[in-house]
């Protein structure tokens, strides 16, 4: 039988772990809201850009841009992996890394080289340990992605794709489906699929929509409604005027827009992953807190039983002793 003091010690330590995990859960909850706000703030730009792109693509011959061309030979790919800087988020990082690793291996088996761009310390550690060369890496930015980061990645891949050294660019990240669920998502960034413009726009609109449930829970419904209203307002502006004059020319505008589109997609993947990270962490920490609560209950029960056992033994001994004295 474990002794009383040991059990007491365990209860105290589980209790303090519980306090830590509960705090982390609350911190993550607050950060989810910030991350969702950021997605909402970035959405008007993305929607407006898609709208402009669609309008221009109709006018210019979309196939003029080198970023829309599929290369004839497929020799080298760039894999962008977006994970977090910190752990304690359940399977958040492991899921993305596993899928990305499998993809890289499958490329290798077809004799296609893969360059890796990593966002997040956890990913950097993973690839360094496996001795997979990393072309570019970002750390300490996973919780607060900046447009500059997306810009750097975009300019690197666009440069490499245009000069022909890279034939495909794929991004792996966690899409925050809602506050609790993250889905590992794979998207082809380059060559740009011109049919995907519309899809991306719809996704964005849907993203705002699905954020709604999260936001209602977070009680800042109003901000979202406003953001949504402003986003739709912008979109409709594009639809009104049909015949635009293009300066310098429709194809030049398209040429300039596509890199921005690539940048925007990467930026949104980073934002999405940041929101997912907090969601995953909250879920993991909630599970940890629940487990700790359960453990404290069990341990307390054991503690009481042991204590009661000791008391019973003591009483039996006293009664036995007294009876022995009386008999004398």
């Amino acid at each position, binding site marked *: 039988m474990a002794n009383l003091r040991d059990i007491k010690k365990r209860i105290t330590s589980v209790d303090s772990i519980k306090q830590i995990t509960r705090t982390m859960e609350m911190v993550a909850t607050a950060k989810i809201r910030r991350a969702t706000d950021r997605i909402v703030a970035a959405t008007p*730009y993305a929607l*407006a850009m898609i709208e402009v792109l669609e309008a221009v693509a109709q006018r210019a011959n979309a196939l003029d841009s080198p970023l829309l061309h599929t290369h004839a030979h497929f020799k080298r790919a760039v894999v962008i992996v977006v994970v977090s800087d910190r752990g304690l988020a359940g399977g958040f990082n492991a899921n993305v890394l596993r899928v990305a690793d499998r993809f890289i291996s499958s490329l290798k088996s077809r004799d296609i080289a893969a360059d890796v761009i990593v966002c997040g310390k956890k990913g950097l550690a993973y690839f360094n340990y496996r001795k997979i060369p990393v072309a570019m890496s970002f750390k300490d930015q996973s919780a607060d992605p900046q447009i500059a980061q997306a810009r750097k990645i975009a300019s690197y891949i666009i440069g490499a794709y245009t000069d022909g050294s890279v034939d495909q660019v794929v991004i792996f990240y966690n899409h925050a489906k809602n506050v609790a669920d993250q889905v590992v998502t794979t998207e082809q960034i380059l060559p740009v699929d011109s049919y995907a413009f519309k899809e991306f726009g719809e996704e964005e609109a849907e993203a705002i929509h699905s954020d709604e449930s999260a936001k209602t829970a977070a009680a800042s419904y109003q901000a979202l409604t406003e953001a949504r209203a402003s986003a739709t307002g912008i979109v409709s502006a594009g639809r009104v005027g049909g015949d635009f004059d293009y*300066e310098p020319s429709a194809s030049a*505008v398209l040429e300039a827009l596509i890199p921005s589109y690539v940048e925007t997609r990467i930026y949104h993947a980073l934002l999405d992953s940041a929101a997912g990270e907090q969601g995953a962490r909250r879920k993991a920490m909630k599970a940890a807190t629940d487990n700790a609560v359960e453990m404290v209950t069990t341990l307390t029960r054991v503690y009481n039983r042991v204590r009661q056992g000791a008391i019973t033994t003591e009483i039996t001994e006293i009664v036995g002793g007294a009876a022995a004295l009386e008999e004398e």
Partner: protein
Amino acid sequence: MANLLKCDIVAPDKMLFRGEGVLISAPAAEGDVGFMHQCAPLMSILRRGSVRIKSDNDEMRVFAVDGGYIEADGSKVVVLASRAIDVADIDPAISQQRIADNQQHIAQLPDGDPALAFAQSEIAWQQHLLQLKTG
């Protein structure tokens, strides 16, 4: 007000301005353009410069933009700026600090480093902000 033009200025990470103006000028690819109510639809690339919005009570709002796109259809102007800031929010001390930081950064970089171009464009942008702020 029949002669007002709606205007949105959006940067990748947020919406900077949403309002109305009588006259809106922007640095389009082939020279500065002014927009008024019922203007011809135009879609253009923007240069680095400033977007000015004159409201119906003659107030002027100025935004620094670092390239992007502009779309105007006669009733509404949408500015998609790749980077933008309200001139009133520019802090010269911060700009000067950024210029100094980046110059130091450039000095340490080897020739041909991709980060070089970023640092240089950051310096040019901050200098542009300073120039707009000080007039």
